[in-house]
């Protein structure tokens, strides 16, 4: 019951950020899909190859959801960073931090409630909006060539990057080290894991990188949260 109460409280505090991210993705994602539809038609109509020439694979490849992947990335990372900073860096943002910390509950429960609230926000605000955009792009009236399911799976992986940045920002916020020593190491590690994640050639490898990065950050955050003096 205490966990649920904490979760509700955290969700309430995450709500403005999650709604902002969802609105951003929905608005610009829809616009991108609309403009892509027109671009596709133009590209197919006007893409001209020379006679007797070799055609590069680059010219025939495309990402079926256009720049929606980039928008998902911006939304997920933006939301992750905002929640991480909001919950751990400026923990007393709404003046409830001291109250929460001195409740008769274990610190792990408090941390779990915060992380669950962030996760739910990411899933709802980014993941579900992405599903809607994918469904919209799959309708025959949108395009005769539907996007492959891999686009949706990849998009969800990109949502996972948001979680990684959330944990990185949270760890940096919790660290008591000076900024020029290891204060920002959590964020640095997140950026490194992000590059590693993007350089994998299969979604499975990307997923593995995400799990490892999340696991390490989660562990360090938990350990820091338990031992830190507030």
């Amino acid at each position: 019951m205490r966990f649920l109460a904490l979760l509700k409280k955290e969700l309430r505090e995450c709500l403005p950020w999650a709604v902002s991210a969802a609105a951003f993705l929905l608005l610009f994602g829809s616009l991108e899909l609309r403009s892509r539809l027109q671009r596709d038609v133009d590209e197919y109509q006007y893409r001209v190859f020379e006679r007797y020439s070799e055609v590069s694979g680059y010219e025939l490849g495309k990402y079926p959801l256009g720049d929606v992947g980039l928008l998902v990335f911006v939304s997920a990372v933006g939301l992750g960073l905002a929640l991480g900073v909001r919950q751990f860096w400026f923990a007393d943002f709404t003046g409830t931090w001291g109250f929460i910390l001195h409740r008769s509950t274990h610190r792990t429960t408090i941390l779990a409630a915060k992380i669950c609230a962030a996760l739910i926000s990411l899933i709802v605000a980014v993941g579900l909006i992405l599903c809607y955009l994918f469904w919209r792009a799959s309708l025959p009236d949108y395009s005769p060539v539907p996007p492959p399911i891999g686009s949706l799976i990849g998009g969800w992986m990109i949502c996972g990057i948001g979680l990684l940045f959330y944990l990185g920002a949270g760890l940096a916020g919790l660290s008591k080290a000076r900024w020029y020593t290891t204060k920002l190491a959590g964020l640095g590690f997140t950026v490194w894991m992000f590059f590693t994640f993007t350089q994998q050639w299969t979604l499975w490898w990307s997923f593995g990188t995400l799990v490892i990065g999340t696991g390490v950050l989660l562990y360090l955050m938990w350990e820091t949260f338990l031992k830190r003096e507030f």
Partner: protein
Amino acid sequence: MAKRNVLEYVSRPAEAVIALILIMFIVFFAQFLVTELVWLYTYEKPSPPIYPDDPQWRIHRAAKHFLPDGTMHLVHRTDAQDDGDYTKEEITDVNGDILWQGIRKERPFKYLEWESSPREYAEFYGEQQISRMLLSPPLPCVLEVPVKVGEKVKEVWQYDLEAQVFAGYSIKVGLMGYLGANGFALSKAQAQPLGKFEGLALWTDEDPSSIVMLGVTKRRIYQIDFRTHKVETVFDSGQTDIESIRWHRWRPMNPKDSNSSDIQYRPLIDCRTADRRQHLIMREPNQVLTVELPEQMQTRQTSGHWPFKVDFTATSDALFMQYRENHFNPPKSHKLLEQYQREYASKPRPQSLQLYKVIDDGKMELVKQLDWIRPVWEKPYPADSREIIMKWASTMSPPVFDLLWYLFGDSLYEFGSEGVSTMRMMQAYAVIIIEFRPRYSSLNCVLSTAMMMIAFWHGWSRRTSWGKLFVWLVLVGAFNLAGLLAYLALNHTTVIKCPVCGRGRGLERVDCVRCGAELPVPERRKLDLIFDT
């Protein structure tokens, strides 16, 4: 063990590893930046090389071409720079007698052309890489081939990664069928998978709206004509993997270009398989010829020394092979390559160019051979200054990289020098180790030792245990500057003057490391309510 201790034992090393990795990347970046900046400001354009006036050098440097009857000509560039068609040339026979002088465009001889790798050949992994979804795609995320009629797109063929077939969508009616290994099929279940593509080459013919694809899988080569929905298995290697393909005039040539040569060529694909056989697939008429070359001819050389020793070409009259032998036999270990290259360049080396005619049963008949001696190669221009600067910058690199090079050098080299790897990040780390390793520099050892001494001096008064200090010293010694910075980032604690012995002591430890005196209790003050209650 208490739960708190377990957390400590795992989290402290994890923090140290993260800090070390991040600082290492910062140090690498600084090394790279310093190298590039110094190189930029000290760069001097090398003067053009001046070769000794030696007849053997003249032969060695000349381009060697064959006429279809087997006659060999040596083409000497007389201009200092290559100006394409307008380069001045002098053509001699193998005895050095001048046959012609003029600009390349007006050259009166038509020489044999040889096979090459497809120019736009793309290694296609067919995987959905995340960076392709975020950034501009380096390779197709989804391959879509449009088929036009006139100016309008009629169909789009999308490659289905999971089913390994092409799904065809008509712009008007939507899904219309699939192209698999067995040709066109109405349902996905009926279409046989083409297999995972290892490489693709695409081209247009006289109709630029119609694209034809040559798709190479592990064991098959397909040619797919999207306009006619025709899938042709050009070659099936059976149970052996295909290693590489090269081609000559396989795709249709512009009649204007193909008529410029008097030689009538047959379309050719040279497919090399893992069992060391060359399969020569020819058209006009269709023919497949398998050639087993001697071991010496099959060896692929390192770059800069003719990676392929043999080239094929097929004319309407004969099938030719040219074989170049420079007796450059690199050692099996890449760790010895640089040394071998220096030794190779330091002595005159016999060279040979041979022209063979391939008979229908796959046997070779020597047509022409030219042997010469390549004189000692002395670089007529200074060594690359970037290498010298990098050598100095790498003195700050972790000595542990040299250990890794010593233990796994060959694996790292092979992994790092792969053209495109599915594990690009790991490949990048291998390249970093190879490029930034200190190359057994004695200055690197001195600097590493100095870093250890600084860490020891810093850690002596702050140590909480000898074991921890020892581990840190080992890390600093192994990782040089990055190790020292990581150590300082994680171990810097305030030092106070010990009230008993008067020397520095860290606040992390209760007793002084020198005199053993405990930390002084703070003096009570008037308003110190805590002590009063």
